[in-house]
């Protein structure tokens, strides 16, 4: 009766827990017990299974089919039928009768099938806390290969051949950075892994650290070998407790097995890694601020030169890369740079992990070859817009990125392709917005984020952003004047041109790109004192449009203040004296009849 399922992995990461906080292990154990197969199937705790939109997720192995846990009864039923038939709940309905149907593979589900997993290859397949499982999946083989058969120069040459560019956002060629660091003969040198993922809506690095910590570690050790470093530091936000735990376990077990510490794999190479939890300052994701933070100083970007590769942590040559960059390294060493270069585009080799969030149906992690267009990511893999709303904009690269519109969906996503349109790939956060998002409000949100998170060092970022925020608030509150747009644009350009670090230089992007692509919305706020997306409270009149109203009464039912008068078959009337402007009615109305 039991097909080839021998293991079920279940996700414990916080995205799944946010969706439904149930004890998946207990549910699974109970269901298997009921089916009498508890002793034949392993239950493995794992981290991100990437299909966050349908969490809590479980995965059947070795097939790799992913399934969502809803309730105990549902789970039991699914297990029974799945174990019996091998079918997959996400698969398209069978064309033939049930008996004739082949078991549809996971590759037939768009969300999975259109992805190409390089960095996330091990997600769910292995237990991140088990070094043995990582080893079974070719883990540390690259390290062995490098230490026994390659010189550091050859490792660097392989990295250069691969064309891998830094995944943190700036896209600096990794091989060149390693080569730079190797050049300086001052010791000790340091390798730093930047796990201070801070963009709102980005969680790629967290998932990698949680699901495959050894890949990151192996990448760092390889880097240490290549650049001649003996110490590594992983800087992880303290808000990622699970990532901290997984990395801690990974480091401890790697030390036990001789992959870390003195005399790695008996080759005479020494390398050890420590974890530094960050205290949650966004700017500490900037490399020089991060190094100050590790040193126990205030995280503020410093001036360059000297570059960190020459004088970084504690004034020593330091090679800093992002989590995802390091996770790519073992595969490159194992499969060769040519293989890696064959994926993706000419200038941007390999794959990129995106965290797809917002108004899209399938929220989760998406790993696709560089150069995949936005439409594929949002509509094929992401499944399009949730509900009956319409796609409006996509925001890439976090608070430093810009908003793009429908007409940009054909653009391939690479390091350089989006710049002309006023956006950037950044570290890989993709936030999809539908027509219930006000673009002025979106700009205000990201600007507020940067005002709060600026380190306060340089004038344009500290004060200029605050001036921009003031203008945006003025517009949102209905006090906007036509000259504000020009002032806003000028100030945004000034901040971008004269700020010191990436935070300030990129912080005006949300404003600049929305001004460029959604200027009409700004104009509506200023000239008509109207928010087209019905978001900006101060610009709402809380009136029912009699033509649009279908007299359903939903607004009256949700109003917490009892301000909506409605009787069956009548157009609702809002008593504006009693109205507390909470917008419950506006959200509830399916016909956008309240403005």
């Amino acid at each position, binding site marked *: 009766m039991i097909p080839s399922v021998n293991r079920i992995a279940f996700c414990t990461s916080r995205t799944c827990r946010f969706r439904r906080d149930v004890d998946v292990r207990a549910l699974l154990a109970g269901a298997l017990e009921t089916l009498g197969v508890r002793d034949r199937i392993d239950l493995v705790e794992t981290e991100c299974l990437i299909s966050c939109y349908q969490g809590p997720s479980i995965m059947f192995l070795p097939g790799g089919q992913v399934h969502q846990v809803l309730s105990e009864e549902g789970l039991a039923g699914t297990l029974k039928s799945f174990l019996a038939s091998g079918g997959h709940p996400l698969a398209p309905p069978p064309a033939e009768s049930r008996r004739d149907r082949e078991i549809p593979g996971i590759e037939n589900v768009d969300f999975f099938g259109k992805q190409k997993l390089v960095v996330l290859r091990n997600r769910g397949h292995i237990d991140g806390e088990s070094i043995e499982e990582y080893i079974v999946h070719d883990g540390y083989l690259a390290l062995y290969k490098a230490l026994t058969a390659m010189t550091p120069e050859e490792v660097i040459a392989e990295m250069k051949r691969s064309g891998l560019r830094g995944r943190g956002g700036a896209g600096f060629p990794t091989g060149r950075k390693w080569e730079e660091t190797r050049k300086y003969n001052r010791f000790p040198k340091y390798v730093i892994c930047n796990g201070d993922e801070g963009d709102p809506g980005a969680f790629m690095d967290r998932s990698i650290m949680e699901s495959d910590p050894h890949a990151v570690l192996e990448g760092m050790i390889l880097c240490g070998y290549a650049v001649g470093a003996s110490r590594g530091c992983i800087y992880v936000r303290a808000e990622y407790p699970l990532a901290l735990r997984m990395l801690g376990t990974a480091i401890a077990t790697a030390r036990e097995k001789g992959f870390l510490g003195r005399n790695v794999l008996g080759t005479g190479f020494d390398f050890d890694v420590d974890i530094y939890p960050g205290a949650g300052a966004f700017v500490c994701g900037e490399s020089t601020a991060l190094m100050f933070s590790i040193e126990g100083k205030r995280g503020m970007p410093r001036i*360059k*030169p000297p570059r960190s590769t020459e004088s970084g942590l504690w004034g020593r040559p330091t090679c800093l890369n992002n989590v995802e960059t390091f996770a790519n390294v073992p595969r490159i060493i194992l499969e060769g740079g040519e293989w890696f270069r064959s994926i993706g585009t000419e200038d941007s080799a390999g794959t990129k992990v995106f965290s797809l969030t917002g108004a899209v149906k399938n929220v989760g992690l998406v790993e696709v070859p560089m150069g995949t267009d936005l439409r594929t990511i949002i509509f094929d893999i992401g499944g399009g817009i949730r509900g009956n709303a319409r796609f409006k904009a996509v925001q890439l690269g976090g608070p430093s990125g810009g908003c793009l519109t429908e007409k940009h969906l054909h653009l391939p996503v690479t390091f350089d392709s989006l710049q002309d349109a006023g956006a950037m790939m950044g570290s890989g956060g993709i936030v999809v917005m539908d027509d219930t998002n006000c673009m002025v409000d979106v700009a205000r949100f990201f600007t507020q984020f940067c005002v709060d*998170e600026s*380190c306060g060092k340089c*004038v344009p970022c*500290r*004060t200029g952003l*605050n*001036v921009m925020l003031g203008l945006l608030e003025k517009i949102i509150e209905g006090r906007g004047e036509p000259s504000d747009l020009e002032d806003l644009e000028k100030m945004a350009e000034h901040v971008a041109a*004269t700020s010191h670090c990436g935070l300030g230089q990129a912080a005006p992007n949300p404003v600049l790109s929305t001004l460029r692509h959604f200027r009409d919305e700004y104009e509506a706020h200023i000239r008509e004192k109207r928010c087209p997306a019905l978001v900006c409270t101060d610009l709402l009149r809380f009136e029912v449009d009699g033509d649009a109203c279908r007299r359903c009464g939903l607004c009256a039912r949700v109003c917490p203040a009892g301000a909506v008068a409605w009787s069956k078959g009548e157009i609702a009337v809002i008593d504006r004296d009693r109205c507390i402007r909470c917008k419950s009615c506006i959200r509830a109305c399916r016909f956008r009849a309240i403005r």
Partner: protein
Amino acid sequence: MEKALITLRINEREVSVPGGSTILEAAGKAGVFIPTLCHDKRVAPYGACRLCVVEDRRKPGALTPSCFTPARDGMDIVTDSERVLEAVRTQLRLILADHPPDCPVCDKAGECTLQDLVNRYGVSGVPLPATRTPGAADRAAPLIERDMSRCVLCGLCVRICGELQGRGELDFIHRGHRVQVGTDGGRPLDCDFCGLCVSACPVGALNDRLYGNRTRVWKLEKRKAFCTHCGLNCPAEFHLEKGRIRRVVPEKGDDGVKGLLCVRGSFGWRAFENAARPARPRVRRDGVQAEVSWNEAVAYAAGALRNFLAARGGGSLALLTADHLTTEEALSCRALFRDRIRCGGVGSLRAGGYRRILSVLGGGNGGAFPGGEDRRDPWEADILLVLGGGAVEHHPVLKPLVNRFLKSPWKELAVVSSWPDDLSGRANLSLVVPPERFDGFLAGLRKALSGERGGPPPDTGPLFVDTERLARLIGLLESGRNMTVLVVPDLFGDGGERARMAAFLRDRARAVLPLGGGLNSRGAVLDAGLVPAGPAGGAALLEAMEDGRIRGLWLLGEDPLESLPGGDRVRAALEKLELLVCQGPYETAAAALAHAVLPSALPLEKSGTVRSLTGVERTLRPLLSPFGESRPDLEILEDLRAALGGAAGENALEFPEWNTDTGAVVPGPPDRPPSLQAEGSSKNLPGGEGFPCTLVPVPSIFGDGPLSLRSPDLLELRRGLRVLMNGDDLEDNRFEEREPVSVRTPFGSAPAEAGRVPGVERGTALLVHVTGDPAGLSLLRPGTAAVPAVIERRRP
């Protein structure tokens, strides 16, 4: 290291600068103005104000901050394009949006960088909605007022305090638009009060409280001179109004000591306004002092001197000089007291340790310093070896200098001291040897280095230091790397042994620099030949006065009651004297006992030549008019010489051992046995409960010199006698920080305030602010570096 020249164009002007220069430096050389607010040559570029943006024609559209961007060959820089000017104006508008427009009540108005730039770039009106209103100034701390509502967050105070002064008292707190500069938990400033932050602040956020609200900057007459508090003679700018000092600021410049002052230089100037000075000469007639004219006073003094010489001979007279004398005055002293009177001894209490070290090093008969090596920049060395504790306490301006030295990662600072001073806290290698073993340790080390066998030196037992550190020290000394040796005397100890160690290392060092001297200590020894022969510390003098070998004392700016340990013994010895003359600028305790009081001028009231501890000769010019009828020492001495007439020293005693010229280095065992065990065993202590410890008198960062002790502001910072101990000792004995305690030693007792200090061994307490404190001095013996003591709670 000469770097190749690169050539670039700035505003069409071609300029060549050494590789590694910034665009801003190149512009400076080309005579092109670039606005800055957060730039100060004393600290590393920072790039916060973004006013210094320029355009490179080869990268149109991009704005480059020039303060830290290296100039490159072939750059074509424009600083006055409309785009650059507009960026600067916008930046100024942004800064103004966060700055209250309270210039009428701001002391900085008229010399405010922000005000100047706003004016220069024609920013007018209130261009952006202001976010800050004038706030209340924080006057919780002495001397420095902070008005953070005016702060433009350039970070200069933070950087100068952390990077240069090494104190880190100020730092940024909060993030984003809420960021501000503050202290730990918002407490009042409690720092070195060097005032560098005030000197760096481009706006009116940090203000000098002694200056504040008293005048306006355009009324000031700015005179370049130098600080006279210690022997480093730092260049300073004295700002005068109607002949009175209003403030003192560091003279800006990029070399060496320039641009740096310590608390004494910045805030100690009210010593010149101290009214506790004799206005007219006084002489004792019939047991009573009476004011007389200068003619009478000189005649009286000369007569008394003549009678004394006739009765007792020159050998019974001793001269004590503080080093406020110019070289000319010191030479006059030498001519009068040594060559003419052939007096029994020329010593110094405050500069005794320095003179002793210099003479052991071979300063000898006023000759040139050995090899002239010290003329080379001592900070160019790779290794800075400090022998003796208290280098930065004697000369606080060494703090920023050492920090600047340590900026290069390959530089090493090794400190061998008898107590954990400020420098040992930041040394790469610090060896703290207990005071009673310090000389023995150095002698042993010297033997070890010279290859002599025979185990540890006699009388010292084991070396009592961490052997690994010792090995590292020896490794450093034998590494052959470029080394500068600083030799620091103890407050009351001798210092001869560390000088011998330094002399031994002289061949390996690029410079040997004795420290701890006053205004013209170096000139006094090297140019005027005021050389002590015996050990420093005043023990010999006190004994000579007690047993009658010395019966007359001429005090030139010195007061044994203020700076010679011994308490009642000193007073009794002074009272026994047959001739006591106090010649000096201030009213002193000893003056009450004197037969004649001759008021002399302060350094800023006279002219002459002085030589700094680093060997730089400077000319003193009067900035202030002398107080009352006081006259420069030179005039007084020359008048005396004339009044004394012909040879009077014919029947003088043979020149005693006190004044033999040593000439060469005297290697050998310490001049005195470790005295702690000898006379200070704890059984001599009166019984009672309390914390038994070894008490080490140490110099104060707020100054122990004659000027510093007369500054009301430095005295306020000192807060009287303090005993500082290990935090664990403090807690074990349940002393509170700042609790009043009483200190007892076999020689006396004194009230003091308890405190903690990092790094002190358990069972040791540091005694600070003892100079000028008669009760504190009574705890000690002259010539000793440490005494046993008991510290106990003061009974109500």
